[in-house]
């Protein structure tokens, strides 16, 4: 699915050439996943591991791919087996000995944070592989908000519907300068009462969304959540006054395209 997705995204038939659009062989690629939701509603190992292995097969040194999140505990709780073995993808959290947060505050607009050394120092190219969820404050949590897990103080960024914080955290050298690809794990989508897991509102959607534009990818994620909500008879996020404001802010900041009319979506059943 990844190979097909990246080929569709780039228009390249050769997967090696398609991947070269995003990564160089010498890159150290970080796959930032989201595991706060535990086993039920986190980025699944059966999505992230095949991605990491495929990258290692096609383009990047296997030991240069790292699957990571904030803490080892959250990774384990979401079903990951930690690994620092350089013969394959490495898996560990920012709280691993030797990692931690950088020493210098990164300031951008309303944001002042220390970044995970994994994102700041180790990786040279970054994939945001988030699970798509409704979010009581932000409206939607997807690829951009996933990078809240790269800073030491995400709790400070949930005022005013996480806006402009989501866009501003993204608009830092450690994130914007390294982000290459957004992938939304939509195999199961939490469409209501997120970000925590509630089985009655967790839809088996069975899709992956890939995008080179982080804002457009999240905007597509929003559309998916609205589709599912409408099908379930739930009010729209706008009706609940919590549509994701950060998308318009991100577009205004030049981070990508939020306007659905200007986003090309290619859908394919696999």
């Amino acid at each position, binding site marked *: 699915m990844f190979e097909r997705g990246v080929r569709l995204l780039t228009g390249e038939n050769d997967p090696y050439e398609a991947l070269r659009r995003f990564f160089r062989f010498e890159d150290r690629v970080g796959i930032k996943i989201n595991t*706060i*939701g*535990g086993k039920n509603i986190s980025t699944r190992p059966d999505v992230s591991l095949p991605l990491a292995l495929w990258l290692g097969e096609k383009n990047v040194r296997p030991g240069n791919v790292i699957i990571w999140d*904030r*803490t*080892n*505990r959250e990774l384990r709780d979401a079903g990951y087996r930690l690994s620092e073995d350089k013969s394959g993808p490495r898996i560990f*959290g*920012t*709280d*691993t*000995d*030797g*990692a*931690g*947060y*950088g*020493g210098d*505050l990164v*300031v951008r607009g309303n944001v*002042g944070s*220390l970044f995970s050394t994994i994102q700041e120092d180790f990786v040279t190219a970054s994939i945001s592989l988030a699970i798509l969820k409704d979010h*009581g404050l932000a409206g939607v949590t997807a690829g951009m908000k996933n990078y809240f897990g790269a800073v*030491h*103080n995400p*709790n*400070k960024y*949930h*005022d005013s519907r996480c806006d402009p914080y989501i866009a501003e955290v993204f608009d830092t050298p450690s994130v914007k300068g390294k982000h290459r690809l957004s992938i939304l794990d939509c195999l199961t989508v939490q469409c209501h*009462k*997120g*970000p*925590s*897991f*509630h089985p009655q509102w967790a839809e088996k959607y069975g899709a992956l969304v890939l995008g080179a534009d982080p804002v457009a990818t999240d905007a597509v994620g929003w559309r998916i959540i609205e589709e599912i909500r409408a099908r379930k008879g739930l009010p729209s996020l706008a009706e609940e006054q919590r549509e994701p404001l950060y998308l318009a802010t991100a577009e205004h900041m030049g981070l990508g395209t939020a306007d659905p009319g200007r986003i090309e979506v290619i859908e394919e059943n696999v």
Partner: protein
Amino acid sequence: MKRRQFLGSSVGTGLVLGAGLPSLCSSLAAFGEKANLSRVEARYYKKHPDRETECLLCQRRCRLSDKERGYCGVRENQGGTYYTLVYGKACSLNADPVEKKPFFHFLPGTNALSLATAGCNVNCKFCQNWQISQVRPEQVEPFDLPPASVAELAEKYRCPSVAYTYTEPVVFFEYMYDSAKEARKKGLRNLVVTGGHVEPEPLRDLIKVVDGIKIDLKAFSKSFYTEYVRGDLDTVLEAIRTVAKSKAWLEVVYLVIPTLNDSSEEIRDMSRWLRAEAGPDVPLHFSRFQPMYLLKNLPPTPVSTLEKARETALGEGLRFVYIGNVPGHDAESTFCPNCRKVIVRRTGYEVRANEIKDGKCGFCGVPIPGIWA
């Protein structure tokens, strides 16, 4: 040497505890795997359907889904129950002069056992202690210090008071409250150093177990609180009113920041309000700003600005107005409002002379408000 080891050796050799904040983390290391978090149910919150919780401790009233944390970073919804993660988990502990808090009318010349946990419910751009206040508890290395041990340490190190300070004690309310009760059992006093972002009910409960509260009034404009504090002026003013009406001793600090909150009008309006709501005897400290954290583009406050602010406040009828963070300045000392003589002479945090006798000026006999014995 890790802080925990330092504390151990200090206690063992009878040295003054701690080495001050510079001994704290200069960068945030990775303590998460060894995270030393408590799991004590919070006292002020409401349960909602779908495992949601609503914190009732401060005006933010964070409404959280399962597994989420509040703005403070130290209180977490776990399965629909709200927990404090920092109960008994001190990350800073020192025996400080009480003048450092600052309390100038509260047992001058004594030490207060001063402690903090990680976390804060605002995010001041000029925070002095952001390495412990603006982080999550996994990002510091706390030591286990249950409430009874707090009181024991205070007694052991001859501190007549315990101060809950450095970060924002409201966010470790349960720990502070229980420690205060333990301290009282031993005849010790309790001091709180807070930004005043607290709901009325917990504040009323807190006042029952503490003896002095210092509130940072960071400006007298709502826009400043929104932009530079991420807080709420009205909540802080209400807290000042509540403490002023209570039996707890109140002092107020106003950090004067060049161009942001130092206009004559703002200082005058604030002083006028404070006199009307808290009375002329509430000590007011104008403190000097130093550039740090997210506010490094402004210079330190000129001493002349502080002196002007002091003159304004005195002119509005406040009787005890001090200048802080300017060691050696005359306005560090307490002047008798009647005979004008120096009755407590201070240099920095050191008390060089104390002429208060039985709560009265040793020269003219006029009562001096405060807690003196």
